């Protein structure tokens, strides 16, 4: 099954992580797309989606995910049969809105009928772990469960 990594970024941290996941999965030859360049009409049931997103401002989606959110709202697509997983990036210095970006995208996709696989995982920018150290084992675990 094809793997497609979609990322929403504001400062570039989520973009870098998306590229690292892509390098890690090179034998699956995943596609990597900035959410601002992705149209909900292009979701495909033969593909597994890895969504990587930060949170920005007051718990909002990062800038590059906002055009996607607008298209989701205006197109209201039926995403039944679409499977995805979400890796969020947050900063616990702002606990009230920690990882709202990942939460919002998850709710947006499940609300349209897509199926979340596994649990949403969140990296904390103020913690001591590197995002890769959390994200790459998470991806490996998803693949071990046979998602793609």
């Amino acid at each position, binding site marked *: 099954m094809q793997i497609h990594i979609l990322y929403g970024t504001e400062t570039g941290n989520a973009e870098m992580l998306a590229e690292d996941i892509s390098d890690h999965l090179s034998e699956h030859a995943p596609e990597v797309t900035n959410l601002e360049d992705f149209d909900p009409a292009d979701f495909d049931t033969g593909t597994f989606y890895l969504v990587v997103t930060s949170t920005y401002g007051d718990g909002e989606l990062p800038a590059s995910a906002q055009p996607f959110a607008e298209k989701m709202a205006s197109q209201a697509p039926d995403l039944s049969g679409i499977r995805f997983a979400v890796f969020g990036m947050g900063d616990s210095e702002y606990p009230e*809105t920690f990882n709202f970006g990942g939460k919002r995208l998850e709710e947006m996709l499940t609300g349209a009928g897509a199926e979340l696989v596994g649990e949403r995982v969140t990296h904390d920018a103020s913690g001591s772990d590197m995002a890769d150290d959390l994200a790459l084992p998470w991806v490996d675990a998803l693949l071990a469960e046979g998602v793609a």
Partner: protein
Amino acid sequence: MTSIAIVGAGPSGCYTAQALAKALPDARIDLIDRLPVPYGLIRYGVAPDHQGTKAVIRQFERLFTRNDVAFFGNVTLGADLTLEDLRASHEAVVLATGLHTDRRLGIAGEDLPGVIGSGVVTRGWNDYPDAERPQIGPRVVIVGNGNVAVDLLRILAKAPAEFDGSDFAPESGAALMAAGVTRIDVVGRSGAGMAKFDPVMLRELGRLAQASLHVHGATGEGKVIEALQAIDVHRPEGATREVHFHFGWTPEDIEGRACVEAVRFRASNGEGALHLPCDTVLTAIGFDGETAQADGDGRIAEGLYATGWYRRGPRGTIPENRADAQAVAARIAADLAQATSDKPGRAALTAGLPEAVGYDGWRRIDAAECAACPPDRARRKIATRAEMLTLARQSEDR
């Protein structure tokens, strides 16, 4: 090979290098900074207790380790090399030098001891090389209604344990405790609805362990006002500091004989006066300085470009400067597509700048800062240029 020099290794310079390295994978990029260390305002402007915001540095480290990007620190344009030299040696030169000077209030008493610009305070608290630690008294007035004002007040209001995980120097923490701040007034010229605070940074204040928060005159609607109203109830038991927010007051003059004694404000619309006795005034009303005469894409002249605050003025946070850097880099890439590339580039810098600190030198400084780090801190910054240079020049085999 195309050679590009970027002057200023702060966030705008680094994002420009990142975008250029993607657009022109064969280009060789040299990042020049007057400090022996890279990352500019990420290291010296972002507050020491906002380590998550500093995480973008991990992107920039890759420029030096994975792309053909070199660091030339401890190099001052105009002293160690001229702009003409640089334009002669590189196909494109990008000025990402930022703006450094605190904007002045332009009122009487501004030069009294005890009146300090936010840039001076921030450099002191961030261990900018050879910067002095600011002298703070128990009663502080902060003039300004943006995120810099919030950073200043948050650091003044924190208890020692609230700096855990930061890179705030223990000496700076001790100096603040000795100052014994009891009251902080934050005063803005415009109404609360126009204040430039980030709501999320206001809400962060609602977790301060020892400061009570009092908001005056925040009526109306909007996210900032909602956040102000939400924190107005923050009254932790045993609070030792009071923070007061005031809106719609224009500073009139700063009173005092040998040093600051009070600030007088008048109502921005209409009648009324506010008189705040104090011994420290921190101004956080923005930065000033010459900006580039560049076109909309950041082009100043053939092969010469500007980006970041130096191009647009002192507005915008890290993501806005990233977007700006990407736009300028796209323009440079388009212009260079037609250019011939036969200039000496990095070889000219290496030959002409024997005192420059390279990325390996910075790595030695970085390692020393991490090794000397107390358990409750993220890092212990080296605070003098002399010590940085000594560390940078230690040979690996010692």
